[in-house]
């Protein structure tokens, strides 16, 4: 037995190496895509942020942290930075609350046509942002846009409201459209969380004479609460990635009043309609700074998640 095992050893080693090689072979395509489209830009933008470079210039000048120093005094940058967080704070809680209510309603087995409602709520999610941008711009237009017409007809306003043209309103308008577009995704997360509540608990509560609202308040919500942290994390990160929506609808206007961070970076990095000189290096510094800020936020949320898990642990 032992004699037979001895000569087999190098053979087995070779086979294991072959298997390992195979694993790496399968990893190659994924790693290539990850490297080319995520890792490379990430590292490159950090390098660019140290350059005074238009992006086209053959001779970028290394300026060290000069771009970062300039950023600290750039009010457009800070406005955009602040706006991004305002947008996030405005959308995430509302989106989570609305989607939770929808999910709890749709999870009710007595509700008829629930899959139809589910589809309808999910429809904006799969609609391209550009299409939504165009349709919403038309809908909200102060010139014969149906929304303004309806508001006038119902006597809710005396004058048309320029939802996208008013610096005071534009960010909130975008926030509402954003919530409408993405509430379906958050709802699906909540629905998944609700699936973890066993059906017998509802039946036990029914036999106990517990009302539907009490079941939601005292059984369902406490049981899905640990999921809230993950959903908030995902929602917060997506709320920072609103470039397509803003670009499609306002390009950051009017008067930069809807210019969130991504739009600011885009405007600075590439020649904008305003005719400013493209500054890829400077925009990269803004991007890196913003990225680090989000990372800090994420760390806090993950810590909160761990805390929630630990509390949920003694369930």
């Amino acid at each position, binding site marked *: 037995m032992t004699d037979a095992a001895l000569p087999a050893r190098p053979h087995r080693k070779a086979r294991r190496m072959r298997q390992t090689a195979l694993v790496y072979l399968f990893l190659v395509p994924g790693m290539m895509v990850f490297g080319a489209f995520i890792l490379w830009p990430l590292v490159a933008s950090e390098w660019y942020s140290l350059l005074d470079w238009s992006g086209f210039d053959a001779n970028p000048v290394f300026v060290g942290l000069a771009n970062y120093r300039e950023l600290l005094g750039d009010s457009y940058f800070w406005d955009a930075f602040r706006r991004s967080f305002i947008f996030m704070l405005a959308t995430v809680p509302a989106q989570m609350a609305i989607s939770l209510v929808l999910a709890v309603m749709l999870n009710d087995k007595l509700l008829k046509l629930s899959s139809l409602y589910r589809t309808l709520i999910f429809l904006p999610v799969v609609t391209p942002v550009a299409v939504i941008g165009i349709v919403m711009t038309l809908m909200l237009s102060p010139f014969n846009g149906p929304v303004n017409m309806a508001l006038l007809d119902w006597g809710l306003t005396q004058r048309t409201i320029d939802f996208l043209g008013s610096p005071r309103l534009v960010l909130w308008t975008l926030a509402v459209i954003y919530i409408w577009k993405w509430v379906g995704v958050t709802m699906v997360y909540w629905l998944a969380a609700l699936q973890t509540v066993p059906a*017998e608990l509802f039946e036990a509560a029914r036999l106990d004479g517990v009302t539907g609202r009490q079941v939601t308040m005292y059984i369902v919500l406490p049981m899905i609460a640990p999921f809230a942290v993950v959903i908030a994390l995902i929602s917060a990160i997506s709320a920072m990635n609103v470039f397509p929506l803003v670009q499609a609808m306002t390009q950051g206007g009017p008067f930069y009043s809807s210019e969130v961070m991504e739009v600011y970076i885009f405007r600075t990095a590439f020649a904008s309609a305003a005719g400013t000189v493209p500054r890829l290096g400077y925009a990269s510094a803004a991007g890196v700074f913003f990225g680090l800020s989000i990372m800090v936020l994420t760390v806090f949320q993950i810590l909160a998640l761990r805390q929630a898990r630990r509390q949920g642990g003694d369930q």
Partner: protein
Amino acid sequence: MAGLSLKGIRKNFGSAEVIKGVDIDIAPGEFCVFVGPSGCGKSTLLRMIAGLEEISAGELSIGGRVVNDVDPSERGAAMVFQTYALYPHMTVARNMGFGLRMNGVPRDVVDKRVREAARILQIEDLLKRKPKALSGGQRQRVAIGRAIVRDPEVFLFDEPLSNLDAELRVATRLEIAKLHRQLDGATMIYVTHDQVEAMTLADKIVVLRAGRIEQVGTPMDLYHRPANLFVAGFIGSPKMNFITVETRSQGDETVATLPDGRTLRLSGAQANQVKTLGLRADQLERAQGDAPLTGVVAVVERLGDADFAWVRTEWGQEIAVRFPGGTTPDPDEPLALRLSGRTHFFDADGIALPEVSIAPAKD
């Protein structure tokens, strides 16, 4: 406590009829077990009594009151689920008192009832724990406690022991039997697929198959006087041995021929209709010399106090025979068997023929 009456109860899921007209009367304080193979409709029937499934046709009364359209919480029934269905984020005490609290019962009353139930179930030291910190058996007690707290007319148990390991299952079975006496004979309905649970717990067993009642009776009724082949095969362990026989009339008596050509003389009305001979493992014993059955021991299962030998007959059928511990023949040993005690006879449709018996030996 209250009695129950089920009259012509039916249940359809779409076009599929799963309960096909069931009539059962359960007396106040009775421990009634619904038993049958999976898919026989026993759990559905229990859920219909609880109010978790609608009743398609028929009449269900609890304590003399028709409750077909009464809300589950108003039926006076409390249910213990197979999966316990405890609220994972609540302590044991809160789990048990939750229903009462939500219905506006004052906190001190709830606390008193929870403590009382905890005392009965000996889980007082677990009241502050959450279900996750409990073993399977403890969770089961909490689930039962939650039912006791409600002080129901009827307790409903849906396979409450199937998630427990074998040892705990036996222990908890005893606990439930004790509980039934302790709660002044509360009416209990208990669903299981395990005939041992049914035999040990029940005052009355309802054997179900494919949505129909096969037989209702006390455990000993079902064991000694099964109404048909299904009940005979389902109740008792190991399963009753069935031997196919051919009958012919010979003068004023009937002769049954076993597959190997040996004969048995039968007496009693309907003896000529016998198609199947049923013998329990403990109704066969070792014989010397001429015997109605001979065979070779194939396998022996030793349990200590008793052994079961699986004897291969001359026509190749394996039949179970019970021997007192230590007297069992070894595998491959030839064996002659004679019938002792009761034998069961069934006609071509599998219906029991209780009048038939083995004719006494002639002098």
